């Protein structure tokens, strides 16, 4: 078969073609079976929809607990908002909205270092805040403020600032 003759070469090509077709057909069947199984099983076909649904469920469950803090922000009562948010955080450490709210309160109050820490925590919990294509993107307001406060911070706060700058820069990570 491998003697280099014309018949041998034709046979080689035929073997390649038949094998490629068989492999493609077998793999197509496997992929189709996996997809059918997935669709019939956990409904894991759309990872994005799954993530959104999961987030919405969690946000709805936590909404009542963070409402007092949000209401205080709406009334412009910064100190009350901080108190309510910190109280709520005791049971909701992983709530990105509370950290974002606290970041805003500390930023308005001039506590730059603490605000940077809270912004970082919020972004670590929900990268959508720095995703330009997300409706939750906060970069438009955050980026100019980071530039403004960069000369004023040092140490851990500067590390948090650089983290936020890298998050806003995007990239594949």
């Amino acid at each position, binding site marked *: 078969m*491998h003697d280099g003759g014309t018949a041998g070469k034709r046979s*080689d090509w035929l*073997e*390649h073609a038949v*094998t*490629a077709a*068989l*492999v*493609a057909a077998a*793999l*197509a069947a496997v*992929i189709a079976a996996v*997809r059918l199984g*997935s669709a019939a099983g956990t409904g*894991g*076909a*759309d*990872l*994005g*929809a*799954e*993530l959104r649904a999961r987030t919405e469920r969690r946000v709805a469950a936590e909404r009542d607990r963070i409402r007092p803090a949000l209401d205080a922000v709406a009334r412009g009562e910064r100190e009350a908002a901080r108190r309510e948010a910190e109280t709520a955080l005791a049971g909701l450490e992983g709530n990105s909205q509370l950290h974002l709210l606290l970041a805003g309160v500390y930023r308005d109050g001039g506590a730059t270092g603490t605000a940077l820490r809270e912004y970082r925590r919020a972004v*670590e919990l929900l*990268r*959508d805040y720095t*995703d330009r*294509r*997300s409706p939750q993107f906060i970069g438009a307001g955050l980026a100019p403020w980071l530039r403004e406060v960069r000369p004023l911070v040092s140490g851990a706060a500067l590390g948090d600032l*650089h*983290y936020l*700058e*890298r*998050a*806003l*820069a*995007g*990239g*594949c*990570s």
Partner: protein
Amino acid sequence: MKTLLAWLKNHLDLVSGAAVGLAGAGLVLLGNPRNSGICASCFAENVAGALRLHGDPRMSYLRPELPGFLVGATLAALAGRGFQARSGSAPLVRFFIGAFLIIGSAVFLGCPIKVMLRLAGGDLTAFAGLGGLVAGAWVGVRFLKKGFFLGKSTRTGALAGWVLPGAMALLAAASVLAPAAFTGGLVGAAREHAPPLASLAIGLVVGALAQRSKFCVSGSLRNFFLTRSARQLGGLTLLFVAAFGVNLAAGLFHPGLYDQPGSHLDWGWSVAGMFLVGLGAVLIGGCPFRQLVLAGEGDSDAGAAVLGMLVAGGLVQSWGLRSTIAGATPAGKLATLIGLVLVLGTALAYRDRS
């Protein structure tokens, strides 16, 4: 014209290097994440996610470039009568080293091609990765000079050579035809992508060129250390120059340390991760991109490495064996250390002891 064509034919490594640089920077302009126009390890993680090997939708997208590289290499190999099903050179060892190439890359945040693309975008933190890569390749060459050899591969039945090209042809078709529910790319970094048809076309061309030229970043370093000829670094240099030129023209060159996309400041772990990649790549005959190209030529040993890469693409996300922009995770550090021990152990075990 004839002279130009003949020159290009004789300098295909330079052409390939420039093509990878142009494609890497061009794909960013078309929609891929910044400094990640081409990254075999990021693509492996994305494709692993699309195949449900991990559950992070932000890193799940059936990137057409990855199957494109492999299928492009297959087409070029068939056209040049270079397709040959072969196997038998320690495939399981290659599987694990292939996996560690992705883990090392995930700790640095990019494959060897992305090291160059990050530098061309002005990311000065990538110098740490470059240092690690060069050092790893140098150590790998020391082992080659001491007779390291994984065993001879031999010609085998056509089926073995066609498994991965067949699978990747299907993935390539799915990447442009299947609905987003299958391909992913809906949120986060995965949503940043060039139009699928353009990505696939670029992947095919780059894969074909790389097959004809044998272009590979760590392969260039290996050849340089073996021959001490600067000519071996020509393709690599042109990759950087082409990407730098496009970035400069498009306003995407932003030199800096702290605000770079997809980077972190754990310098030591960047060095260690890319050292692991440089060493492993020299031992198995090429970086992740080169493994894809070799698998496209019918080399099932490289195919085993590609499968290891895809499995690791899932594990780095689901087990956290990687870095984030905050730095290397504890699991990523541990996996890098384990990888260094195992890959160095392999190098010692397979050296010529006669």
